[in-house]
């Protein structure tokens, strides 16, 4: 009994094993994204497959003893299945979306390679269905291209950066990689001033200057996953009570919990950077009904008072 997934895999496995003679069991399993035991099961199924008639000479031949002894797979007598099947629509769409997501982060020659690969794939899959589109806030292609070049060359760079608290800075960093989270592109880098891993939103990087200095070995940063803020020991929880019209913030900011009521919504935020909360409260203005703890609102109130004074003087 073979499932549809297995048949789909077998139809690709037969040409793969013919174009990769003596392929290794473990690496072949990795190519197909299955555990080695599953691949062994696949080979046992294939052993019973072949041309109509079912005579010994009609069957696909696999030397199962060699597989057992050396982990090498030799498959013969299947010349009629030397090319893989077309992509299923789901495979084609999944691959195209992945490449389009890459395109949004790439710059320069990397981007060109992705563009032409996409064009060839779309032609090969031949489906005329509208392709899903992908768009990420990844800043300018030139900034990305400079960053990936510096990463490839292992070089320190100086950034012109506008932080979440809207404070401009010029950090010197060892760039590691470009990543996407929640629809934004980020640079993951080691900050020399802070001696810590930092993420920089790509659309807030104004300029990248090469320094000519080697970045050295920087190791691996902690996981930048959905819970990355939780790992910051200095993050504090703040609850905002907002008018319902401010519900958009739940889609643009990391939120711990949302409670919707008839005339208001309450959101719990983790705040690692007081400057970020200050600019968020200033932006929300009259849409903020209450802040808990109340002292969390002090920074924004001071800043607003300073601005009002400037208007009075102007």
């Amino acid at each position, binding site marked *: 009994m073979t499932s549809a997934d297995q048949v789909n895999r077998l139809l690709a496995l037969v040409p793969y094993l013919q174009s990769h003679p003596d392929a290794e069991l473990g690496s072949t399993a990795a190519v197909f994204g299955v555990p080695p035991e599953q691949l062994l099961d696949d080979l046992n199924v294939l052993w019973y497959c072949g041309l109509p008639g079912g005579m010994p000479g009609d069957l696909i031949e696999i030397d199962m003893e060699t597989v057992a002894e050396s982990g090498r797979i030799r498959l013969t007598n299947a010349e*009629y299945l030397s090319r893989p099947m077309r992509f299923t629509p789901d495979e084609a769409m999944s691959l195209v979306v*992945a490449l389009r997501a890459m395109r949004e982060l790439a710059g320069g020659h990397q981007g060109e390679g992705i563009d032409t690969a996409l064009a060839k794939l779309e032609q090969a899959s031949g489906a005329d269905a509208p392709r*899903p589109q992908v768009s990420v806030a990844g800043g300018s292609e030139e900034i990305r291209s400079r960053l990936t070049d510096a990463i490839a060359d292992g070089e320190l760079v100086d950034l012109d950066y506008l932080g979440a608290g809207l404070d401009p800075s010029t950090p010197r960093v060892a760039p590691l990689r470009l990543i996407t989270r929640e629809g934004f592109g980020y640079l993951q880098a080691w900050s020399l001033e802070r001696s810590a891993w930092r993420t920089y939103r790509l659309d807030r990087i104004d300029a990248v200057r090469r320094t000519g200095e080697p970045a050295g070995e920087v190791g691996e940063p902690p996981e930048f996953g959905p819970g990355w803020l939780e790992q910051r020991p200095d993050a504090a929880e703040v609850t905002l009570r907002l008018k319902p019209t401010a519900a958009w913030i739940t889609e643009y900011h990391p939120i711990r919990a949302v409670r919707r009521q008839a005339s208001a919504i309450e959101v719990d935020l983790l705040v690692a950077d007081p400057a970020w909360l200050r600019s968020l409260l200033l932006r929300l203005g009259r849409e903020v009904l209450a802040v808990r703890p109340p002292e969390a609102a002090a920074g924004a109130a001071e800043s607003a008072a300073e601005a009002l004074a400037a208007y009075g003087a102007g």
Partner: protein
Amino acid sequence: MNLAICLLMARRFIEKSQIRQVVEGYHDLSDAAFERTFERDKDELRAMGVPVETGSNNPLFPDEVGYRIRRKDFELPAIEFTSAETAALGLAASVWESATQAEQAVTALAKLRAAGVDPDPGRLAGLAPSIGAREPAFASIWSATIDRATIRFSYRGQPRRVQPWAMTYRRGNWYLLGHDVDKQAPRMFKVSRVDAAADRVGRVGGYRVPDLDLEAAWASLEPRRPDTEAVLAIRAGRAPDLRRRGRPVDAKQDVPAGYEPFAVSYARAADMVGEICAHGADVLVLAPQHLRKSVITELTATAGRAS
């Protein structure tokens, strides 16, 4: 699997009775069991995208139904990739956060490897994009879009019937563009607002996706073009985002000491007010007057929240 090989090898349509005789695993079955197994296997092949054709070899007896798979419809066409392209392909397997879609991408890459292409995951240094699909309705809408099957779902509590046309991923969110059957008009849906997995109510391939200008449809998701201009006073060295969007001007108004005047255009006054307020005392509105008043109103509310 044997059925696929048998049909693929056939130059002509093969009748069901012939298939039963030659395909390993079929000839020992009872009549009823053969019928069931054959129909199931055939449907499975078709669901996988294997083009199983039906037809007759004899134009005089067109009802005599046989089956075949045409090689050129079945095989992946030969594609040559440059080294920059194989580097891009190599990374594609790691982009999806959703296990289901990641598997699909892995199988697609395995097919390319089987065809002699060598996607190389190590070569695109410094790129690690990822794309999520955490919405509860994502999988059901994705597959209905592929299958062109009408679906029914609850959209923020409202029942909707939709023929899915295409999906897009914008700023961390999936959207569905489709034909709203009840409203008889195209509509855009945010997948995260679909309350649970969508139900299929139509058959596979149940409608045609019209020739539409997808770019234009998606453009409706983008912010409006800025068409109004404000004159702002920006503190030296601050608010590079607004400086970049604007241009330095000679202001008619008095500019406070330590500030520089910039003209910055915007689309929606409410958004612009929020953006200016976020900068606190670093950005002041010089004109127009109504924008200045709105900003002062919001700042007054925030200043009053001192503890």
